[in-house]
């Protein structure tokens, strides 16, 4: 199937960024702020008992992942709307609190569960290291962090189109979003990974600016992901049209 190259997708992303720069960066800024506030609200002192502290951490992590996940679905929809040329609003970030709530909760819950599972080693180490600030930089902690990041990345690779499918087909049953996602990504995983990896230099530049530039880079990457999805769906529709 004639798919666009990573270079063309990045060009598409830049065009949609140029047309909606303040919204693209503003939506990312608001999302990051909300994540920070939600994480701060839900961080409290845990009981001394390790098992109880572990259970509470897992539960809180899962609930936070669901709430943040619903906002993240809204964020993805903002970038997809930019990509298809419509005029999105900043408050579309909260669209799944009003519409398709069931599907949004199921999808966020699924991602939240996977996120919690890959976070377990890090949570255990963090609970064990409570009180000593510098043990956070130990090798096991670093490995647990890498395991978590890799796990989250793989989940994204396998189920990448799910948030966009929710916007395009809001009436589908939640399970079919996940099934369709894995089917759509067959043969496209490598391209998605390459597209994501191509943003590493820009992310390093963003880090150099102490994270300020990252708002632009993350928005750019989200636009590129939306372009990737749009291209994937367009190519499939063309193929189906030819077959008919």
């Amino acid at each position, binding site marked *: 199937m004639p798919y666009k190259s990573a270079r063309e997708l990045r060009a598409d992303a830049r*065009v949609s960024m*140029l047309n909606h720069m303040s919204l693209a960066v503003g939506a990312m800024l608001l999302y990051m702020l909300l994540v920070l506030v939600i994480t701060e609200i839900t961080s409290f002192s845990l009981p001394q008992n390790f098992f109880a502290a572990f259970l509470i951490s897992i539960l809180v992590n899962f609930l936070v992942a669901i709430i943040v996940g619903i906002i993240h679905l809204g964020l993805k929809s903002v970038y997809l709307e930019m990509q298809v040329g419509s005029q999105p609003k900043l408050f579309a970030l909260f669209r799944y609190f009003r519409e398709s709530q069931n599907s949004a909760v199921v999808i966020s819950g699924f991602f939240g569960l996977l996120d919690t599972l890959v976070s377990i080693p890090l949570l255990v180490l963090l609970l064990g290291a409570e009180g000593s600030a510098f043990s956070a930089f130990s090798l096991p902690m670093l490995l647990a962090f890498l395991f978590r990041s890799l796990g989250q990345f793989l989940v994204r690779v396998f189920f990448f189109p799910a948030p966009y499918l929710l916007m395009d087909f809001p009436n589908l049953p939640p399970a079919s979003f996940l099934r369709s996602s894995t089917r759509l990504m067959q043969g496209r995983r490598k391209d998605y990974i390459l597209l994501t990896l191509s943003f590493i230099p820009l992310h390093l530049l963003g880090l150099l*600016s102490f994270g300020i530039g990252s708002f632009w880079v993350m928005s750019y990457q989200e636009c590129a992901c939306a372009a990737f999805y749009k291209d994937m769906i367009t190519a499939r529709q063309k193929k189906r049209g030819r077959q008919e």
Partner: protein
Amino acid sequence: MDMSLYRFNQAKQARLAFLISLAAVFSTVFMTGLTCYFIAPLSIIIALISRGADPVLPRQAKTAVLISVIALAVNTVLLGFTFIQFTKMLADPVQRELLNETLYKQYGLTLDDFLQRAGNLLR
């Protein structure tokens, strides 16, 4: 795609990148330190995004990238030079004593007190 709107937005972002790169130069010259590291990469990122679907960067964006890279390099050299001078000063007992006296007059604490407190904070 509305080309006139696209060109307008592209020029706007390239101009923004250029202005930020000038701010990076200003921060390098007048506030040598970390400020340039905040500003210059931002200018480069915005300049790169302003390329849009074109094969090359707009002229102003290209200038912005060049200025930002130079500002970053100069800032790093100046910081490195300052650091080397400071470590040389610390190694020289006469200059160290002079620094201790000056700081004691200004803050009521010598450099050694400062370093000891910083060490205690990190421990």
